[in-house]
């Protein structure tokens, strides 16, 4: 079904949103992502992903207060919806399954 597939970037955005809880708005998501993944993330990519996820129904949002720091604009805070949580869980389970299929002798380095 169209729209249920979760891309890699979308997934990590959602995970970050879940971690940030009440502070999960655009800029915070971006900064947290950059800190945790150690890679550059553009703010526009974050916004595009968040809005797309919201269209798909994986995220819900509400508006915070206006603040002077944001030039008088409100924050849009995202939360992971039930659908989103289910999608994340599915993704997690699939990963686990795939990892469990790998025999011990497959990798030369210690991953787990």
């Amino acid at each position, binding site marked *: 079904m169209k729209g249920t597939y979760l891309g890699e970037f979308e997934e990590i955005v959602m995970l970050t949103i879940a971690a940030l809880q009440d502070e999960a*708005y*655009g*800029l915070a998501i971006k900064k947290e992502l950059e800190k945790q993944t150690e890679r550059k993330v*553009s*703010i*526009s*990519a974050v*916004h*595009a992903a968040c*809005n*797309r996820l919201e269209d798909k129904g994986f995220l819900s949002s509400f*508006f915070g207060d206006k603040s*002077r*720091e*944001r*030039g008088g*604009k*409100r*924050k*849009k805070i995202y939360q992971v919806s039930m659908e989103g949580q289910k999608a994340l869980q599915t993704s997690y389970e699939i990963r686990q399954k795939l990892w469990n299929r790998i025999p011990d002798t497959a990798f030369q380095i210690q991953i787990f």
Partner: protein
Amino acid sequence: MEEEREYYDPPSRVLQFLRWFCADSFLDEIEGDLFELYQEDAEEYGLKKAKRRYVLNTFRYFRPFFWKRQILSNSPIPNYTMFKHNFIIASRHLLRHKFYSLIKITGFALGISAFLLIGLFIRNELSYDRHHPHYERLYRVVHSLSIGDYEANLAWTATPLAQKIREEFPEVENAARLRAINRRLIKTPDQASSNFEDGFAFAEHHALEIFNFPLLYGDSATALTAPFDMIISSRMADKYFPGENPVGQQMILDNNEEQPYQIAGVLAKTPHNTFFDFDFLISMEGDEPGKSTSWMGANYPTYLLLSEGVDPGEVERKLENSIVKEHIIPAYKQVQSLGYDENNGNYVRLQLQPVKDIHLHSVNYIEFNTAKGDIRYIWIFGTIAIFILIIASINLMNLSTAQSVGRAKEVGVRKVLGVIRIQLIYQFLTESMAVILIAFVLGVFLTELSLSYFNQIIGIELSIPWGKIWFLPALLGIALVIGILSGLYPSFYLSSFLPVKVLKGNLASGQKTANLRSALVVFQFAISVILIIGTLTVIRQMRFMQNKKLGFDEEQVLMVQNTYTLGEKPFIFKEQISSLPQVTNISMTEFIPIPGQSRSGTNFWAGTKRVMNQELEMQKWTIDENYIPTLGMEVIAGRNFSGENSADTKATIINEKAAKRLGFENPVGEYLTTITGYDNETNEFVTSSFRIIGVVKDFHYESIRTEIGGVCLFLGNNPGAAIIRVKTDDMAGFIAQIEDSWMEFSPPQAFQYAFLDESLDSIYQSERLTARLFTAFSILAIVIACLGLFALAAFTVEQRTREIGIRKVLGASAGNIYQLLVRHFILLLVISLALAIPAGWILMQKWLQDFAYRIDLSWDIFLISGGIAFLIALITISYQATTASAANPVDTLRQE
């Protein structure tokens, strides 16, 4: 905790931009985030970098995802959704009316195809000789003169001109002579016998500096500086020295073993669009006549590379003053018998012609290489191409407006729903653009397909320049322009319907536009008819020229070239051959009546004395007594030369034109005087008088385009070539026999022969090509015009279906209906013819002026052209009319 914090303002322009394009639903959070990020960046990186990052980040948001979506936009600026919407409607419309769409697209695709083909051809023609470095400064000196009776435009100049210019003209950076010469015998030292090759030229080493003749091997600074240097082309190098670097090797020219030539370089392959196409460049240092310092005559083309910033007019003036006045005219005046006299209108003029113009603009210059184009044909074909495109566009417009009636309701409803006019215009423009774009793609595809066939016809390798970066954009640009132009009128018309009228059903069935449509049809057809007239005229003229009696019998005549190379023995060869049973007659001379063969012009005077200012320039040919019978010429007065009569060496036979020019009514028995030699001591020409013993009927010896000049024949021994009249069924066997005979003579030479009629035939190739191109494009134009007519007829019939049904019920026969439908179109066709025939007549008259011997523009050409057009149109319309008149009224009158 209250903090007094200073906030930086982000760049306002960029912010405005964001607010303009971004959808409101995102604007808040995006603007806020950007602002916050900006503050942090300013703290961390400083204001300047922060601004840069702000700009960058903002632009990153400029993607369709974030754009404002306006479904009903009042702004006249088209946007993405609107295009998408229009496009969908346009494609639905196209698919729903497959018939009309197909006709529109096909017609236009054909038009594009024709346009592209002609365009490629013209582009090729215009591109000659632009690959030389500084080609804008490259000129050649052309020479027009009038001395006595002789007037000519020559591409040759005096021998010492180049050197003089190099010495005394600082305005000219470099000058070089480059002269193409007749075919020569050539071989490598270890080959047994020589071959004839074409493409020889004498060149000064300066030519390598001026022109772009890149050398694969050899050093262009030194090649051609030694007297017996030679540069050969890469294809000749492959032929004679396959797989090796031939520099330093020798070649033997004209069997002169004592003086071999050294290969000093190998020419890389030159592009085909150049006037300079040589296989062998021979150093002029070894050309003795090239060292002459005489200022008379014109034997060497001279090319100049002007210094930067020099105006060619300046050089011309200097040439006039320091060369013409100081050297050339005095040289001519020295020789009294030439009769140079300014007061009599004689002149000598040297002018500069840009080298890049040589290919197209030198039709009138007498010179060696005759494979040139003609700028006039470029104009003609260019105009035809544009007209074909116009016809196709007219089709488009006609059909669109014709379909308007069917869409009136649609327009009415949409307007009621609140669509404003501009949007409708965009809608209809999009539709016409869609048709045009599809047609373009199809047209380019068709061009690609037909290109190889087209190339074969015209003998040039054309190809679509996919690789050039300007090509696709240019094509797209043209498509857009044409699309918008031809779409504008229908769009405006279609969008103008008033909803009230339409929905009430009162819309008059496009009466006003019907008139415009008719006018356009008339125009289309008139152009097509003119094209047919043109084609018929061209074809007729070609056939006339091919069949015209040349004044001699060219069939079954074999020419064996270069018999002078047989050393002492050409006449023995002649004896041998004439004893063969298949030979009816054989004559030896270098003067053959084919354009491009040897000519010898000199001065003549009527009577027995040389009279000042009364010289006539005519041809002087030395032949033998068999010449006239071998070629089958007709002696209309007097007699032919007789081998036995020794007095005939002081006799001459002249042609009718010569007799006219000499002013003799009864030439036989009269005398003429001509130049027979040159006395080196007195610097004067020697003349003798000859008695006219016969008059021969005029014969063509140049192209039929030119007038026949005066020719005087003299008896003598001229072993230039052998002309053999043959009567045999086994030509191949006969040729083998002659070749055997030839081979007995030593040193063995290449046996070179040709048939007179074949040689003559090839002269008219370019005209045949024109005829073929004309035919092809006329057919194309008619097809496109008929397509339009077909569709228009279909539409008209459709409009009147109910009317036809009613008439049938009331008792009209199929015949009556047919007449009714067709009447309107007949009228249009008649008007077309009335316009096209006079126009065609005028145009063709002009074209025919070019030919000295031409057909009359008889009325039957126009009759046939009109008839053809009429017939085709009638068939086209009839198809629609007959189906309509046969329709069952029950079906047509049924209420929907």
